[in-house]
């Protein structure tokens, strides 16, 4: 066989694979701060269920919930805030019975590694050396909503307005800081490890200045794989799942929250 022909056969073979091999496919829309956790648990999930393939759709929770409202073919939704899940529940788009809170996170302020600026308390953000601060766009990005709440209760929200740069999700905020384009940024403590060598923690806003960062998960009503989606939720709340979350720095959900 000529090389070109072999190449063509190979390409055709690869193209035809998905139709043949993927018996069961499930799509997870996941708050991007949960990326590594869900990928880790996802590998375990697929390993124990041959023939099951997970597809991930990572993004800002607000963006993901709008996609679900618009009828995106998603089976499971993991949000970084209750608000987006509440909206979907009110519209009857998720299965209320399946909804669970499975993790908690903490807001923090980071600066580029090697930054000589002293940013050790909230008031330092107002200093003239801090030209730009990145937060997630509060309209769609939970970490931006938490940052807004915290800055408001610290009485700094109006003062930082001219410095704010809005990002499309928390990882973009992390990237802006890692690249040194901004002096400071609001992310979750768990995000720092992703760009560990490029960012350092500046300070943590007091936890009573913003609502607790809790992660709800639920099966999407329109899912064609509700049992499989429920199995993934079971994994998240299982000791195995909780151990994986703890390894990546997440805290267990507050007691009393379902």
């Amino acid at each position: 066989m000529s090389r070109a022909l072999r190449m063509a056969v190979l390409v055709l073979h690869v193209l035809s694979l998905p139709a043949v091999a993927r018996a069961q496919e499930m799509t997870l829309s996941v708050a991007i701060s949960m990326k590594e956790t869900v990928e880790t648990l996802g590998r375990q999930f697929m390993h124990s269920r041959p023939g099951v393939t997970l597809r991930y759709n990572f993004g800002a929770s607000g963006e993901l919930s709008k996609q679900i409202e618009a009828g995106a073919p998603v089976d499971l939704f993991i949000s970084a805030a209750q608000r987006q899940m509440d909206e979907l529940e009110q519209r009857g788009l998720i299965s209320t019975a399946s909804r669970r809170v499975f993790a908690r996170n903490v807001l923090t302020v980071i600066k580029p590694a090697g930054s000589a600026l002293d940013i050790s308390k909230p008031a330092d953000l107002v200093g003239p050396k801090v030209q730009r601060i990145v937060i997630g766009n509060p309209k769609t990005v939970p970490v931006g909503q938490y940052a807004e709440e915290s800055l408001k209760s610290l009485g700094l929200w109006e003062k930082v307005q001219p410095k704010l740069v809005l990002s499309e999700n928390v990882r973009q905020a992390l990237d802006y800081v890692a690249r040194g384009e901004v002096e400071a940024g609001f992310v979750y403590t768990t995000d720092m490890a992703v760009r560990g060598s490029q960012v350092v923690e500046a300070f943590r806003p007091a936890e009573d200045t913003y609502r607790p960062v809790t992660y709800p998960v639920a099966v999407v009503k329109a899912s064609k794989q509700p049992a499989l989606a429920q199995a993934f939720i079971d994994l998240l709340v299982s000791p195995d799942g909780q151990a994986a979350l703890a390894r990546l720095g997440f805290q267990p959900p507050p007691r009393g929250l379902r």
Partner: protein
Amino acid sequence: MSAEALSALGLSIRVAVAATLLNALIGIPLAYLLARRAFRGRALVDLVVTLPLVLPPTVTGYYLIVLLGRRGWLGAPVYALSGWSVAFTWYAAVIAATVMALPLLVRTARAAIESVDRELEKAAFTLGRSEWRTVLEVTLPLARNGIIAGLVLAFARALGEFGATLMLAGNIPGKTTTVPLAIYTAVQTGEMGEAVALVLALTALSCLVLILAGRLGARAA
């Protein structure tokens, strides 16, 4: 229309006008050089100017960050000297729009200049005009239609720029949120009324530009 939508519309027009002016300033001389002069590196200049036409805007945006970001090749020394960086300012939106629009002007203007009869230029030359005056009084007036068409295309492209702008200028309401970015955010946040208003405004503006261009072309012909 909301205050945010109006500010996006105003910013978009400012950015597109500024980018078109910069395009005229850079693009017309460049088109002339490419059309009429043989110089070392001509093929390379042609390639670099044309690339944004074929590359995904995000790739162009990435190169702009590498060049102009706070730690970029050009951005780092500027930031070290002045403490200022172009990223996340409306100038960044102008730069992104200029780079994305430039190939449209250069290619159109170049073709127009190439089609100018060289004998006419030579005649002006023999009558004692310098190359500079020949360009201004003979070549450019004769290539006028093509240059105007190129500027219109550049303006329209600048008005619609999204990807490179998002990467270099970010999406900061009131500062760098142009209409395409505002539409994107409005759809993402489910503000469909806002999105529709901006979509219609941008469509109307683009139609206006095309009609105006048609009139100008007809008068010039």
